[in-house]
Structure formats: structure tokens, C-alpha cells
């Protein structure tokens, strides 16, 4: 297999414009003859489904939630970046592009990232027109704030609920299309497999989560907007339902999976309280704008924070990174937090815990309680609800948690995977964030893909594909549907002793310990062995219960965990093969004497795209070399 990225020729700044002018268009009268299946209804999926329907395509959209409005994009808090330069602080398309490439530690594709920065401004226009209630200045103009890892204020926000408001904008645009009958919406429907005919994606197999009915859906193209896979760690900030199944099934049907080991650990989450913990809650990174992060100088210091005098506090990010301080990028902030906790200086009940302070004392003194309440009121309330502590009185405690996955299905410049007619957008693809994503860039990418990129590029394929029409009666659909039925039957037939949840927790522990914030070869090899053994045990000893013909949440979970077990191994393979540290991928063997990541551009300046080689066989590695023309590869420095 050859990875063809289809990056247009010409200077970086002219590529997209030129490509848009040159790609094929579908005759308006023919658009309704094309049926597009969109899986997922988050920012990427909803915006794509709505925009494609507006163009005249017939669209079917699927989501596992009970409503399209509940996709996990809704939980994004902080904001969305755009190169508007409204603050007159020197922002530009190039600067947003450069920050994103640099933040990603030079492991993303230049052309894609430049395009992302280019369309970013139009996203804000689009969302404002839809009625997204962005924060405003007193004069009625849009407000901005600065956000983790950059030095300009280019982040647009709607209180601490930016993801919610952007998603509702896309959901409402989608709802309008559903109402006029151009999109057929299928909530509580989970994609369980992909159907490939003659090398092209031609449809999906879906299980209705209420009736259990498994059905086949045929189309001319399939768009996967199914989000990320942080739940491989069990405990993450993702919603409980987030899973890898759709993209994993696509991988097993021939799409390659890029950089699976690039997973972001977010520095500002509420620490775990006990073994019952079901998920971790993120506190927006915007808190780092005004909060100061510290731990006691002394190990095992059990004094309450207000009794620890100033000179016995270590504001370690400010000490190590004087110019960025508490705004150091996520990967660095996370790793340093783990380090101080591993040293025994963590805080939390009893001292020596897994937490660091995020302290607003100085900000409250400087700006006043009211300003802080206005900026972070709902976040403070949320923190208090969960922990029972008031951040106005006691510093917050935070700890890193898995949050976002930069890896995903490999896509070309057109967002098409290595399977013809199969597209991956949003967090489900790998394309724009390299080895680390900057704050407020996920919303930007999801909406860029869905509103402004896929609607153009998919037409190029449909105009030229000339694939014969197939329907769900085609033998290939029958065959794949039979395999899905068999997998469901096998899960239900297992009558072991352990619950799905127990297995998921065990898998999560292995992944967090060995393939989490820092990794090493010995640990990864051990993990691969343990995952294989656990997977065998899962199929032998799991108990799912219930029936296949009704709402069975244990069965839903079982299918997702079964796929996580297979996927986890690929993640470890990828982490093991990448013998360098870059972005969030920190290999303990490859670091500078100061403990910073040591990149190896010579050997690893490429995208690792893995091809499925069969069950129990080593996946095949394909490399897409990354060429940098517009930027100079620098060692990231936030000091």
C-alpha cells in the first residue's frame, strides 16, 4: 500500500484556494442521487451532515446517544481559536498555523494545518450567524481570551460552555435539515461494522440500541465522525459512551490507523477520589490564565494549603518555564505534575497524593472576587459540587487525565482514508494536531472539517467515483451483517464471572501505567503481553447478561471493550516503535538532561500509519514522511 497524501502543489498559502478551484464538482441536479452516511453527530458530524444536506446530497446520520445534541463535543469548555486578530496583538493565519505545528511538536502535516488556520475565521462567522451566544465586549463586538500555550488572544468563547453552544449551533442546523427531510437521523444507533465492496466503502452495519435490531445501510460514501478513544484508559474525561469501535472496524476493513499512541493527557482535571470512580472531570484550561500551580517544597507535607508559607511553596511551572509559566503546553504541564507527585510532593487527603494545587488566591487579591466569579463562576461551582470544597476559600486540586487523542484514521488532504469513499473527520482522524493538541483547537478542527473542508472534497470523489449502485441486499452486506450478529451472539453466550466493567478497568490500568504520560520499551512490551492475556480472559470469563433484542447497556459496553482490547495492543506497538519523545509521547529513554522531550526528526519525522494484517499478526507499518517547507524545525522551548 502506498500512502498518497494528495497535497496540492504550489506555495503553502495558495494550496487550498487552488485545490478548491480545481477539484471536481457534482452537478447540482445529481447531488440528490448521492447518499452519504455520516456516523457521529458531534461538531464534525453534525456540521458535515447539515452542510452536505444544504448542498443537496441525501444524508443519513447516526449517533449512539438518544439525541444528536448529546455528542461529547458538548462538554468542551474553554473556547475555539480563530485567526481574526480582533485584538490587534499580531495574530495572523501564519501565526495560528505556526503555533499549531509547533505545539504539535512538528508531527503534523503542514498543508492541512495551514488550511485549518485559513478557514478558522469563517467558522466564527458561521457560528455567529447561527446565533451562538459568544462572549461580547460592552460595545457589542466579540470578546477573546488567550488560551494554553500561545501568546495572542485568539480564543472565542461562550462562558465555560463553548463546546455546548457550538454543538447546539451545528445541531440546530442539522435539525433544520432533518425537519425538511434532507437528513434522515438515526439516534440510539451504533455502527458496528463497515462494508467494503471492490475496495470502496459502501455502507455500514448498525445496531438499534433500543430494539437490538441489526440493519445494513448502503451509501455512496461513508463519513466517520466518531470522536476519540481516550476511554481505552477507562478513566478519562471523555463521556462514558465514547469508543473506538467505528474507526477500529474501519481499520480492520482496510483503513490505516495513524499515530495511535499520540494521546493527550490534560493537566487540569479533578483528582480521583476512590475505586468507584467512573470518569474524570476536566476543569477548563482557561483556569490556568489566572490560577497558579504549586506543590509544597517538602515531601509528604500534610499541612492545609493556607498554612504553608510562601517560601515553602514550589510554583514549579513558573520556576521551570519563566516565559510561559502556568500556561506551558498541556503535555509539559501534565508531565511535570506527575513528576512532582512521583517525588512524593503531591497534595490531597493525607498528603503525598495524586494532585497539585491550582490556586486563585493571588488572582482574587489582584482582580477581586467578582471578576474571578465572572470568568470562572460555573467552573468553580462545578468543582465545588464534585469535591465539596470552595475554590474561593481553598485552592483547587488538579491532576492530569486522558482527554483527547491526536491519533486516528489516516486521511489524505481530502480527509479520505486509505479506503476509497471512507472519510474521517474531527477527532476521529489524525490530521492536524501532530503529537500534541493546543487548547481551543479541537472545536476549530471539528468544525473546519465539517463545515468547510469535507463538503468540498467529498464532491471530488463522488463526481469521479462512478461506482455501481449497490443496496443493502448485496451479498457483501449480508456477509458483514452475519459477522456482526455472530459477535453479538458470542458476547451474550459468554457466561463467565467477571463484568465488562471489571475488564475495562483492568485494561485501563495497564494502559495508564505503561502507555500513559510516560512510556518505556520494557513497560510497553510487558503491556502488550498483558493486554493479550486479558483479552483472552475477557472472551473466556466475561459475563454480559440480558438479551440482544432490547436495550442492553452491558452488551453495548461489551462490544466497545472488546474492540478496545484489540486496539490497545496497536497503541502499544506504535508507542514502542517510536523511539523518540515528541509532544505527548514521552519515552523515558529519550529525554534531555533537563527532562525535556528529545525528538528525533532524522528517524521519526513521519506519520506512522498502521495496516491491519489479520488477527494475531503484527500490524504493517507505512510511513508518510513529513516535509517542512514553511517552518523551521525547532526544539520546542517554553522557557
Amino acid at each position, binding site marked *: 500500500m502506498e500512502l498518497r497524501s494528495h497535497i496540492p502543489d504550489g506555495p503553502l498559502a495558495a494550496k487550498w484556494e487552488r485545490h478548491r478551484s480545481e477539484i471536481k464538482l457534482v452537478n447540482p441536479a445529481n447531488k440528490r442521487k448521492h447518499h452519504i452516511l455520516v456516523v457521529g453527530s458531534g461538531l464534525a458530524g453534525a456540521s458535515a451532515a447539515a452542510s452536505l444536506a444544504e448542498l443537496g446530497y441525501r444524508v443519513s446520520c447516526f449517533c449512539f446517544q438518544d439525541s444528536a445534541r*448529546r455528542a461529547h463535543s458538548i462538554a468542551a469548555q474553554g473556547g475555539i481559536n480563530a485567526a481574526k486578530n480582533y485584538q490587534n496583538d499580531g495574530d495572523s493565519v501564519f501565526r495560528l498555523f505556526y503555533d499549531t505545528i509547533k505545539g504539535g511538536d512538528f508531527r503534523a502535516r503542514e498543508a492541512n494545518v495551514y488550511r485549518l488556520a485559513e478557514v478558522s475565521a469563517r467558522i466564527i462567522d458561521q457560528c455567529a450567524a*447561527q446565533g451562538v451566544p459568544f462572549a461580547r465586549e460592552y460595545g457589542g463586538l466579540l470578546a477573546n481570551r488567550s488560551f494554553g500555550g500561545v501568546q495572542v488572544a485568539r480564543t472565542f468563547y461562550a462562558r465555560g460552555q463553548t463546546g455546548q453552544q457550538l454543538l447546539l449551533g451545528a445541531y440546530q442546523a442539522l435539525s433544520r435539515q432533518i425537519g425538511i427531510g434532507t437528513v434522515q*437521523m438515526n439516534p440510539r444507533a451504533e455502527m458496528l461494522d463497515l462494508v467494503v465492496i471492490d475496495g470502496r466503502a459502501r455502507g455500514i452495519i448498525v445496531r438499534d440500541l433500543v430494539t437490538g435490531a441489526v440493519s445494513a445501510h448502503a451509501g455512496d460514501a461513508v463519513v466517520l465522525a466518531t470522536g476519540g478513544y481516550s476511554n481505552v484508559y477507562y478513566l478519562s474525561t471523555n*463521556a462514558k459512551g465514547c469508543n473506538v469501535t467505528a474507526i477500529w472496524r474501519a481499520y480492520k476493513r482496510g483503513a490505516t490507523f495513524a499515530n495511535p499512541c499520540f494521546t493527550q493527557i490534560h493537566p487540569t482535571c479533578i483528582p480521583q477520589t476512590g475505586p468507584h470512580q467512573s470518569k474524570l472531570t476536566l476543569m477548563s484550561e482557561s483556569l490556568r490564565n489566572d490560577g497558579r500551580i504549586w506543590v509544597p517544597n517538602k515531601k509528604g507535607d500534610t499541612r492545609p494549603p493556607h498554612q504553608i508559607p510562601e517560601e515553602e511553596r514550589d510554583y514549579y511551572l513558573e520556576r521551570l518555564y519563566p516565559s510561559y509559566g502556568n500556561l506551558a503546553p498541556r503535555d509539559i504541564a501534565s508531565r511535570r505534575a506527575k513528576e512532582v507527585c512521583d517525588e512524593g510532593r503531591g497534595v490531597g487527603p493525607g498528603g503525598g497524593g495524586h494532585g497539585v494545587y491550582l490556586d486563585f488566591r493571588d488572582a482574587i487579591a489582584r482582580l477581586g472576587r467578582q471578576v474571578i466569579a465572572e470568568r470562572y463562576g460555573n467552573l468553580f461551582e462545578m468543582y465545588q459540587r464534585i469535591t465539596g470544597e470552595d475554590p474561593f476559600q481553598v485552592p483547587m486540586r488538579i491532576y492530569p487525565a486522558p482527554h483527547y487523542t491526536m491519533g486516528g484514521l489516516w486521511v489524505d488532504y481530502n480527509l479520505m482514508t486509505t479506503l476509497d469513499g471512507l472519510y474521517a473527520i474531527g477527532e476521529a482522524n489524525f490530521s492536524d494536531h501532530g503529537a500534541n493538541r493546543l487548547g481551543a483547537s479541537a472545536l476549530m478542527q471539528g468544525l473546519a472539517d465539517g463545515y468547510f473542508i469535507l463538503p468540498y472534497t467529498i464532491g471530488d470523489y463522488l463526481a469521479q467515483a462512478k461506482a455501481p449502485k449497490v443496496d443493502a441486499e448485496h451479498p457483501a452486506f449480508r456477509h458483514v451483517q452475519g459477522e456482526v450478529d455472530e459477535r453479538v451472539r458470542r458476547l451474550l453466550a459468554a457466561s463467565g464471572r467477571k463484568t465488562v466493567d471489571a475488564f475495562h478497568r483492568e485494561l485501563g490500568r495497564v494502559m495508564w501505567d505503561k502507555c500513559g504520560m510516560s512510556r518505556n520499551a520494557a513497560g510497553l512490551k510487558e503491556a502488550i503481553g498483558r493486554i493479550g492475556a486479558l483479552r483472552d480472559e475477557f472472551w473466556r470469563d466475561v459475563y454480559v447478561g440480558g438479551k440482544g433484542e432490547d436495550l442492553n447497556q452491558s452488551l453495548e459496553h461489551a462490544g466497545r471493550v472488546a474492540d478496545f482490547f484489540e486496539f490497545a495492543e496497536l497503541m502499544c506497538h506504535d508507542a514502542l516503535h517510536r523511539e523518540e519523545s515528541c509532544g505527548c509521547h514521552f519515552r523515558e529513554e529519550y529525554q534531555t538532561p533537563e527532562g525535556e522531550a528529545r525528538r528525533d526528526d532524522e528517524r521519526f519525522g513521519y506519520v506512522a500509519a498502521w495496516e491491519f494484517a489479520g488477527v494475531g499478526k503484527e500490524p504493517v507499518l507505512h510511513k508518510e514522511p513529513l516535509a517542512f517547507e514553511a517552518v523551521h524545525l525547532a526544539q520546542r522551548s517554553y522557557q
Partner: protein
Amino acid sequence: MHLTLHVWRQRGPGLLGGFVRYAMTDVSPDMSFLEMLDVLNQQLLARKDDPIAFDHDCREGICGACGMVINGRPHGPQRATTTCQLHMRSFSDGTDLWIEPWRARAFPVIKDLVVDRGAFDRIIQAGGFITARTGSAPEANSLLVPKRDADLAMDAAACIGCGACVAACPNASAMLFVAAKVSHLGLLPQGQPERDGRVVTMVAQMDAEEFGACTNHGECMAACPKEISIDFIAQLNRDYWKAAVRASPPPSSPSPPRQTS
């Protein structure tokens, strides 16, 4: 903590359901309410019983998926808190907890605590949007929105569509949900061209879904995890009557929102 749970169990739509009693021991006050149910479900599975079905996803109080009536109150006793964010420290040791699904004709029970809230989606599909084709938007700062209006619109837009307002209302009315969307969009300059049509079609859909009439009890606002104000219902009524008087555009002959006092 030790608790006695009485949980509504119902095998499927239209079937008879009833409360089943479960004794819970060793509940940690740091658990969320849903984590407490997770633990119970693990115990049920261990004895090969059917676990309790309930909707949930983000567990951060924003997706709107979760929701159950706890001791007669949607989302339980704590103000401005969804079920997933409710923690067991809100209850005292030895308490009896009665746990039921949302109860409304427009929200039929699917299984146990899971209900079908598709009616909310259909109300939005009927008109809860601003028509803005992708690509056609003007430069964002060409449109000024006074901060006060933007803030008020955001207050309304904070609705998570969980349905607690319907569950709390003695008449199972969806007025707060509809009012929040009508107000969010109607307060913004972008929302003006479709303002009249929007309120009329959304109210018509609300009625078609067989939600009850507004009773002005204010239970909806008390139960709302996002504290959406019933002032927005007044706004909805004003918008509705203005639209009815202007009767433009006429999608169908509008019937007034049913209202009793």
C-alpha cells in the same frame, strides 16, 4: 453509608413496571449518584440479575442525557445539579431513596429509568434554529450584539435538554424548554427574521407532542439544573401573541399555547 433504594423497574415500553427494593451498604459519600448505581449494577450482574438501565454519558452535567426523579424531585435534592453531578454526601446515612424515570406522556418509558425524549428533538426541528447556510455568513464583527442581550441569550441557551422541567411540571409541560430556545434565538439580532415563524411552529409542535399546558407553578425552574428562569416563558408568551397578531408567516392557523392558571 447504608441506603435503601426503591428503583422503578420496567422491562419495556408499554409494560407494567414497579418499584424493586435494593439494600446498599458501604456507599461512599464521595460517589456520584450514578456511580452508586454503577456499583449496584455490578452487584446485580454478579448475581446474574438484569442491571438497571439509565441514560448517562458525559457525567459532567452538560450532555443532558441523565436524569431520574429522586424522592419526587427531578435530579434529586441539590439545587442546579444534574443527577450525574449529585454526590452521595447530599444524603444522610440510612435514607430511603425512591428512584423513578421522568413521567410524562410525551416521554414514554423505554426501559427502567430510560425514557424517549425524541419530542424535544422534533420541537427543535420544527423551528428551533436560525437559517444560516454554511458559507453564507457575514464577517462576525459586522453584527453588533449588546453584551446584555448576549448574556441573556446565553442564560437561555444554557438549557441542556434533559427534560427535568417536564418531569417537574404537574402538567408535564415543555414550556420552559421551548421558551429557552425561543428566547435564546429571539434575543439576538440574527434571530429576528424568523422570530415570528419560529415561535409559532415550535409551539404547534409542542402541542402536537401532547405536552401539557403551563400551570405557572414554577416547578420547572426549581428543578432545572441550569436554573433557566421562567421569565423566558413570559417572553415566549409575548412573542407568541405578537406573532399570532402579525400572523406572518402563516405555517398553519396557530392555536395559542394552552395556559391555565
